[in-house]
């Protein structure tokens, strides 16, 4: 349903839910989500409007330095919780599936900060993210991607001597006949767009904000 066709009271509820998520006001967000369910409003409209717009707003606040990584994590958790409340009124055959991303820092590399930022940014951007942590073996990425039927594998590396593992994942996917099944995006301190192209990655991002944009483009 178009937002402009909704009664003012219902539009106010959607705005209120969006604002509560952006402010990370957990109690208010839960209450408004319950009110939306009780009003028997279309939950998909609430998800598309309130949660999606809140995700954009939270990302902007992070980009401008107003919000920090913990805010992204908390906002992401709240979006999950609110989504579950709203989802109660969606028939199982109408549940829109989130795109699935497996992310981690490659083998031999313990750096987590950049990967955490991207992981959290993607989650708050509406993706289902499986964060495998740091020092993840190439085959473990592939196994998990197969297991969760992922759409994308996102690989972080902060060391020049661990960058080759990004290539290894791509090469292994090709060897296993799985290259077309998963998009692959790479990033991390020493990784460049040129290197990403050279190893055959589908995408590259230089920071967390760009990563969200690039993932949305690749999985559109």
């Amino acid at each position: 349903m178009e937002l402009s066709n909704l009664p003012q009271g219902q539009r106010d509820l959607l705005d209120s839910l969006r604002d509560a998520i952006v402010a990370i006001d957990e109690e208010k967000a839960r209450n408004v989500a319950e009110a939306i369910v009780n009003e028997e409003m279309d939950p998909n409209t609430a998800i598309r409007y309130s949660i999606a717009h809140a995700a954009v707003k939270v990302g902007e606040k992070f980009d401008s330095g107003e919000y920090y990584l913990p805010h992204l994590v908390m906002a992401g958790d709240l979006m999950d919780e609110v989504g579950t409340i709203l989802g109660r009124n969606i028939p199982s055959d109408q549940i829109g599936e989130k795109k699935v991303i497996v992310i981690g820092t490659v083998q031999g590399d313990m750096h987590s900060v950049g990967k955490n930022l991207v992981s959290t940014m993607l989650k708050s951007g509406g993706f289902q993210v499986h964060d495998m942590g740091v020092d993840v073996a190439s085959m473990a990425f592939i196994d998990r991607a197969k297991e969760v039927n992922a759409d994308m594998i996102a690989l972080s590396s902060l060391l020049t001597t661990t960058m080759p593992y990004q290539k290894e994942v791509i090469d292994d996917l090709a060897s296993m006949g799985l290259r077309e099944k998963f998009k692959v995006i790479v990033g991390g301190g020493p990784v460049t767009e040129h290197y990403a192209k050279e190893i055959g990655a589908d995408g590259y991002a230089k920071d967390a904000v760009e990563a969200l944009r690039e993932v949305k483009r690749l999985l559109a």
Partner: protein
Amino acid sequence: MRLSFWEVLQRTKEGPIVEEKQFDLSIFKKVGELQRKYDIKYDPEKPLDVSGDLADRVYQAGIEFFLDMGTYCTTTRRVIKLTERELQAEIASSPDHVELGQGEDRIKVVHRDVEGDQEPIVVAGIQTAPFSDEEMMFKITKGCAMDRCVDGIWGGILLKIDGKYDVIAGTPSEIYQYRKMVAIMRKAIEAAGRPGMVIINNAPTSLATIAMYGEESGLRRTDGIETTGISEVKVAYDDLNRSAFGLANGMHIHGSHSSVIGGFSATPEGAAIVAVAGALQLVAVHKAESFRCGVTEALVKSRVTRKELWAAGTAIQGLSRNTRLIVDGSIGDHPAAGPGTKQYFYESAAGHIVSTVMGGHSTQGTRKYVVGTVCNYGTPLESRWMGEVCKGAVGMDRATANRIVKYLLAIYEDRLADAPEGETFEKLYDQEKLEPLPHYQRLYEEVKEELRGQGLHFRE
């Protein structure tokens, strides 16, 4: 009496199990509480705490943070905690000086006071950046080691074996190549006439780090060993492997940890508190005798932003004023600008002035923030600059440092996001004479003269 390393290890197996995400979020909550309790406020107009009062409160908050939060072991997912008595014993028993290197090149690394006249140790060299080939690695390392204001050298990387095979962390190639690179560095410092000079290097895995040691042509016991804490306030067994090797061989252990502005520390105030806590972790958990007390900013590719200078400088000052520990500042080690540019020198100077004046050494080499796979991305002249600035800032008072830093920030602060890339060694140096090309030497002298005019007293 200090807590033994083996008791620490036991606690990694017996401490409470905590979900990593909950630990991360509790960092954010705890620094918020402590910021309010100790009235810690970042003022962009004052990039340095000139009185020391704020630094003392940051130190106290860091102690409280470390005692309440502990260190998260990512290997066992357990939290290692110390009692206040245990922590104070660690701080009191840690040495206030160590000696590194051999023969005439042996150096004494001591606790430095704020505005102190103790000699800051400068370990330069193009830290962990790739070299195109063995000859280039030898040349550049030799050039860095020849400079008398440089006390030690950091290792770089050769990305290919036989010019063909990738060096990959966690594989046999890493062990082979890192060991081979140390042999090249050792030849280079011998050729520079400084055979006993300290070499620092740290491979991605502990296995390859340990494999670099060998008294003849490898790292020596007198070079010490590096161990790192994971950002923020975490450790893995791979880090503790390095400590165990150092302890077993009676070696000096140097630690490194960085808090993250924009990360779970969130604010500059939070990052200053967590920087102190991270330093205490390195002493108590890793058994480091000296440590890099670092701060980085999540969204900016430079380590000398106004916020970073304030947070790292305040944390270093707090540790220097309240303990006898050996603090490594190294704030100017990762400028956004590349070599061959004035901005590189400005950024580097701001960081190293703050490190030195606040009571730190500078042992983390020279390197543009992100190098990627560009080879030979640095020259000995940046090492000389690091040394000249650190030694020149000895005895400077905080008010003068604050004024110079504000002057430098005004020049480079708005150019961090689009910092000039600079040039490689080949474009900046005469490769036979190992001297800067005239245009680079002129640029260096111009910046030096400019800073001399601002009150930085370079040694002649």
